[in-house]
């Protein structure tokens, strides 16, 4: 109520400015709090639209290489929450920094660097070098080409239609990938699942690691790869006959397996301390992604229970894995007790 009264007393104004830019100019936005929405058009100029009170000013400055956009409070301290709508040329490299900022980029075509402390990042497009970092917030990237680096901490990420080198890591969240075309992949999470989707390229390097979660990956019938599968407290499952049956069950006991397919030129390392490793053929169902969909449906209502997600995923994967490699008895190692995520 008090905030409404204060807001009604402030005069609101709109900044709507269009600045011509030369090819190669980079956009650099710093927004302490609020949304940054960027879309593209076919003009070599940048349009900045933001509604703010008369206590804030929008500073738009351009030098030879960079167009800088900053909000500033005319009374000192950080500005109030500002929601930017920015339209840029498709070729423009984009750099956005924020503290409590949600960032959405739609259809961009150049380098992208986004870092926010608490806020979601959603990007469609990007080429060259794409770097996305958020401490608390979901990260989503689609249709990107080049070298991709994604870092989250307390949330998962979804990456789709990526073409190029890919490195992604988070501490408390799952990494879900769709239609990845890459020969160099490095994925790591401490507490979450990793679900990969994409071909294994000859001479490629694929390293997928989780501490507490499952790893699922498709393996085509004709592929040249050396698979190194290792788990300590989980199991290895495959929806197809992974190797000829053998009387030697030493691998079952050690919970490790090295399998050479074709020439073995690609290296695939899948490692989970406490979860299952699940292999499937391309196009087969991906039950491990279902919990994510369900948890997204109940997002904002209830925080997802990570243990439940992992249990659901493992149970689902077993449903689709008719050729069990082994079903181990768990070692006497404590299973992490999840603490509800703070918001």
């Amino acid at each position, binding site marked *: 109520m008090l905030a409404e009264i204060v807001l009604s007393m402030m005069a609101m104004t709109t900044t709507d400015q269009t600045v011509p830019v030369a090819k190669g100019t980079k956009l650099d936005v710093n927004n*302490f709090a609020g949304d940054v929405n960027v879309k593209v058009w076919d003009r070599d100029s940048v349009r900045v639209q933001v509604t703010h009170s008369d206590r804030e000013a929008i500073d738009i400055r351009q030098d030879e290489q960079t167009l800088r956009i900053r909000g500033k409070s005319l009374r000192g301290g950080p500005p109030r929450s500002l929601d930017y709508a920015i339209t840029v040329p498709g070729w423009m490299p984009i750099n956005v920094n924020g503290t409590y900022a949600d960032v959405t980029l739609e259809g961009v075509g150049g380098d992208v660097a986004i870092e926010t402390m608490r806020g979601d990042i959603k990007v469609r497009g990007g080429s060259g070098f794409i770097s996305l970092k958020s401490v608390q917030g979901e990260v989503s990237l689609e249709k990107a080409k080049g070298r991709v680096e994604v870092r989250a901490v307390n949330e998962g990420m979804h990456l789709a239609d990526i073409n190029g080198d890919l490195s992604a890591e988070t501490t408390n969240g799952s990494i879900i990938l769709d239609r990845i075309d890459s020969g160099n992949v490095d994925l790591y999470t401490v507490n979450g699942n990793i679900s990969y989707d994409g071909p294994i390229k000859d001479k490629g390097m694929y390293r997928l690691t989780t*501490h507490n979660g499952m790893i699922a990956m498709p393996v085509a019938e004709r592929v040249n790869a050396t698979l190194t599968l290792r788990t300590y407290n989980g199991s290895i499952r495959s929806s197809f006959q992974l190797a000829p049956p053998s009387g030697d069950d030493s691998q079952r006991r050690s919970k490790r397996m*090295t399998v050479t397919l074709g020439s073995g030129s690609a290296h695939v390392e899948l490692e989970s*301390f406490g979860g299952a490793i699940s292999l499937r053929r391309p196009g087969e169902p991906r039950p491990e992604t279902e919990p994510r969909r369900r948890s997204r449906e109940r997002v904002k209502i209830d925080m997802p229970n990570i243990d439940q997600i992992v249990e659901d995923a493992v149970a689902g994967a077993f449903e689709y894995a008719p050729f069990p490699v082994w079903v181990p008895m768990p070692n006497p190692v404590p299973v992490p007790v999840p603490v509800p995520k703070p918001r």
Partner: protein
Amino acid sequence: MMMAMHEEWTDKLSEYLDDELSPREREAVESHLRGCAECAAVLDDLSRVVDRARRLDRRPPRVDLWDGIAARIDARAATPRRVSFTLPQLAAAAVLLIAGSAGVAWQFADRSAARSAETSRSTAGAATQTSEREASAERNRSSERSMGADIATVTFADAQYDAAVSDLEKALQNGRGRLDQTTIAIVEHNLQIIDQAIEQARQALEADPANDFLSGHLVEARRRKLDLLRRAAALTTESD
């Protein structure tokens, strides 16, 4: 306004410590430090980490890692990019180099032995299966031959790693007031998750000391903790 001012100065502190500023810039930083207790505290933290890093022993890796490193560089050479590090990052990297070298040595020893065991079976073209237990025995023999049984298990009570963690925790503690409660809770929650993973890996390794997967996993988890601490400590300076 304050945020922008501190950002401007904290960005220069690393260069100040490295003596990379012009005399005029150096004078400006010193003048600012005299009047800003917060930046002075950040400089103290940085100096301590750098000082500790400088005092680290030089320990050569127990196997030649260059082949593996070179191969990874080649694999990534297609998309070159400039990489720069801050002083705390370099300090952390120095600590990790030591903490990680034993684990990496294990990994490389394991892989090369496993590879040689596979090669001897020579089953290209068909799906083949190799028992890593056998490979492990082969690895031990191979390691003894090539390195004179020199490889020891990873040390888990690495005083220098602990000291680096302790320094970063202290820097984070000092900067707590600059972060909001929710962010602090998020960081602590995630540190707790990593600590749990480290503890589980450590316990498992105690039960199975020769397990190279576990030693590598532990090294990786410890690295993640250092990464998160460094990132969280950086947030405290960015949030000024």
